[in-house]
């Protein structure tokens, strides 16, 4: 109803602005005069009109930032729901002196493979006072993950921030071959949907440009022109608040949704044998020249994620999840050698792979099923128990 009334109002306003035609109205057979009575060069109105139009546009864009906040339009997205769950979880957990707060960020492999609640229980049973905040989302590219962390940070009260600063805040990053080499992975999956528009926030544009310039050369940028076009237009949509009314009208308060979303074993996943313990090194990547080049932007990404917490992050940890594909295995092993100074839980290590050999533990070649997630989480907890006492803080 709102659309009909507002639309009709706008229609009348546009018509009321008047008809301006110095030259005769054109008819279909062109019998009318087509010449102009006044040349543009002599038209003083033109410049004034352009300036006025530009001023209105700028005022709108600035005003929209104040009066039409984007988070209100994207309350129904999964990222808002995960944020709501995590904020609720932080509030429910009792702050204790010397507590750890572990924020886990990641994509679908984490969403299906890491059970944040079980990890928290396991560590607490071992006497480590920890609250696990699992900000992971299926299909989430790095920009969505940035927005997810930002949503969480924006939802915190001053007492929450005080708690974060007083705790040992650890930021856990997912290491994943496909995502780490491509900041635009999955960007074009859901164009012009609330999911994508929610993180195509003009505030994120400088960060995204930083990642893109850190990752691609000009030739590669040309090859990714479709995604770049999408990025430009979706950011513009948000900057101009296109469809805002409808998005805002249909948005309700986000229903909390956990970052861990277990999946059962998929019936159509029937591999020929057990999960291989290891793979031969990839001949193409054996020189390991490709990885440093394509992942050099990761440092910029991690810094952007860290900066959201305004200096509260005490340390970082990295983790990967196992998979059936050789390149993931090779990448994780390269990563552990290339970053010896980082705390890294290699999900493709031989011990964990030997526990996850059974196909029944898998949802598909890249994702664990619920029973596999249970085993992985146990191993992850074990790793943290062994390593955290050595952590700073």
């Amino acid at each position, binding site marked *: 109803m709102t659309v009909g009334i507002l639309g009709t109002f706008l229609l009348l306003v546009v018509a009321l602005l008047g008809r*301006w035609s110095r030259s005769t109205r054109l008819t279909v*057979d062109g019998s009318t005069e087509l010449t102009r009575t006044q040349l*543009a060069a002599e038209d003083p109105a033109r410049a004034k009109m352009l300036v006025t139009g530009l001023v209105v546009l700028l005022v709108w864009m600035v005003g929209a930032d104040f009066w039409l906040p984007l988070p209100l339009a994207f309350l129904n997205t999964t990222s808002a729901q995960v944020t709501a769950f995590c904020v609720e979880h932080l509030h429910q957990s009792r702050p204790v002196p010397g507590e750890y707060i572990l924020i886990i960020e990641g994509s679908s492999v984490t969403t299906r493979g890491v059970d944040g609640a079980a990890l928290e229980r396991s560590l607490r049973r071992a006497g480590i006072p920890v609250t696990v905040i699992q900000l992971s989302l299926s299909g989430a590219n790095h920009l969505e993950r940035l927005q997810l962390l930002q949503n969480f940070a924006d939802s915190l009260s001053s007492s929450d921030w005080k708690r974060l600063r007083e705790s040992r805040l650890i930021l856990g990053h997912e290491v994943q071959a496909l995502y780490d080499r491509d900041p635009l992975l999955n960007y074009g999956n859901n164009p012009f949907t609330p999911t994508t528009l929610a993180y195509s926030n003009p505030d994120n544009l400088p960060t995204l440009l930083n990642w893109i310039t850190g990752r691609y050369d000009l030739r590669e940028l040309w090859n990714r022109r479709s995604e770049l076009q999408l990025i430009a237009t979706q950011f513009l949509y948000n900057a101009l608040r296109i469809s805002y009314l409808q998005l805002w009208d249909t948005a309700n308060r986000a229903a909390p949704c956990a970052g861990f979303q277990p999946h059962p074993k998929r019936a159509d996943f029937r591999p020929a044998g057990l999960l291989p313990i290891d793979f031969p090194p990839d001949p193409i990547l054996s020189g390991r020249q490709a990885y440093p080049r394509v992942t050099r932007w990761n440092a910029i990404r991690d810094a952007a994620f860290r900066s959201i917490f305004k200096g509260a992050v005490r340390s970082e940890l990295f983790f990967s999840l196992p998979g059936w594909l050789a390149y993931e295995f090779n990448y994780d092993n390269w990563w552990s050698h290339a970053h010896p100074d980082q705390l890294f839980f290699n999900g493709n290590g031989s011990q964990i792979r030997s526990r996850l050999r059974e196909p029944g533990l898998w949802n598909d070649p890249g994702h664990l099923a619920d029973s596999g997630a249970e085993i992985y989480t146990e191993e992850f907890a074990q790793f943290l128990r062994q390593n955290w006492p050595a952590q700073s803080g």
Partner: protein
Amino acid sequence: MAGPIRLAPGPWRQASHFDSVSPNIIHMLFNSASFLLFLPVVLAGYWLWPGNFGRKLLLVIASCFFYAAWDWRFLGLLGFVVLTTFAASWLILDCKERATRVQSLVVLWICIGLQLTVLAFFKYFNFFEDNLVALLSTIGLKSAASIARILLPIGISFYTFHAITLAVDTYRGKVNTRVPLLDVALYIAFFPQLVAGPIVRATVFLPQLATNRQFSGEDLFVATQAIVTGFLYKVVFSDSIAPFVDKIFERPADYTGLLLLAATFGFYCQIYFDFNGYSMIAIGVSRLFGYKLPDNFNFPYAATSLGSFWRRWHISLSSWLRDYLYIPLGGNRLGVSKQMRNLVITMLLGGIWHGASWNFIIWGAAHGTVLAIERFSQIYRGKILTEENRSIMSLLLGWLVTQTIVLILWIPFRAKTLADSLAVISGIFTWRTMMAGAPVAIPITLLILPIFCDTVFVRLLRSQPGKPLRRPELRFGLLILCALAVGLVTKTGLRSFIYFQF
């Protein structure tokens, strides 16, 4: 020339034009994000270039890019149409200069024949094949099942008509100079009107190409006003009504007479806002480059007779059919029965032009028949009734009858099959009360308020004579504000324009 592109049936077949298109970024719909980037770039290049030739060349290149965004394979077809029309127009002039009228007529018919063959092949092959297979099977002849479909090149009906227009106007002497290839290409392929019109006469467009266009405040204001109104029609009104109409027409047998009537009225509004919206954006975008295109709609839902409706609806097509089909058939010159015959033939072909389906044939034939009856009654009474010489009661009655006919005839136009058309008509006329489908709310405000205000108040405001505006910069600022507000109200998602299939 690109060869016919045959695709196996299945997911590769073109979706129904009433389906919402997937938001594929390569599609260059006026309401798409890619067009939002494309237009400013082309505009900037165009106005920064000093010379007319360079500007026209840029527009031709931009138009090819625009067309290739749908399917680059059909660029060859577009090129073929341009080249054959260019050659025909020069040959016709050559023949006329040598006073060989018969030869020029032969060239004209070859050109028309080529264009119509291309159109018929791409547009009607599937239809004829399907019907032939069905016919053979009814008489017991085993026939090969249709295994492949020919994809319809977007805009083919429009650019083919442009090509025929130029050839005919050259023959008729309305275009009496040799038109350069670049101008022919731009006339046929100018991107604002390439895919769904308006069908512009060569005599309207070509003189505008002769001089370097100037960018005036008037152009800026008129163009922006048309574009904002067009977007309002399309992305606010039409796209908001469409889901309701789509739902009911998906399975019309499942719904009550009331819902069927509401959905039919919904389509009555949707198609007007959709196609008029497209036309206004096309006219506005064209004006941004300094080119004027004629109006394509003039408040058709205010018409008090079907003749008047067709002088107000899709004016560029109906007047084209009048000038290039009805009049050559004999027009009003050959007696009452032939006048009526010509009307039916013209409208029947107009229906077929819209698409290869029995629904469009019925729609065109029905309009032709009612127009013929209307003309007969006027001749029988001995006077042509105009809005000026009719009483208020006569006007009201005429409006009611005309709009009811138009409304009912939109049913075959919208329904997917003939059986669906019958289901809608029988559901409405028997006032079916049983409903098998889930309850559907009728968007009453959307169905009534915009169309009423547009037909009554906006018509009144637009009927005011044009004049230089006072404080145009303030009005323009308000117009930009309205444009931004339209964006705010815009429905999410991307829907194609209905007329893009024709």
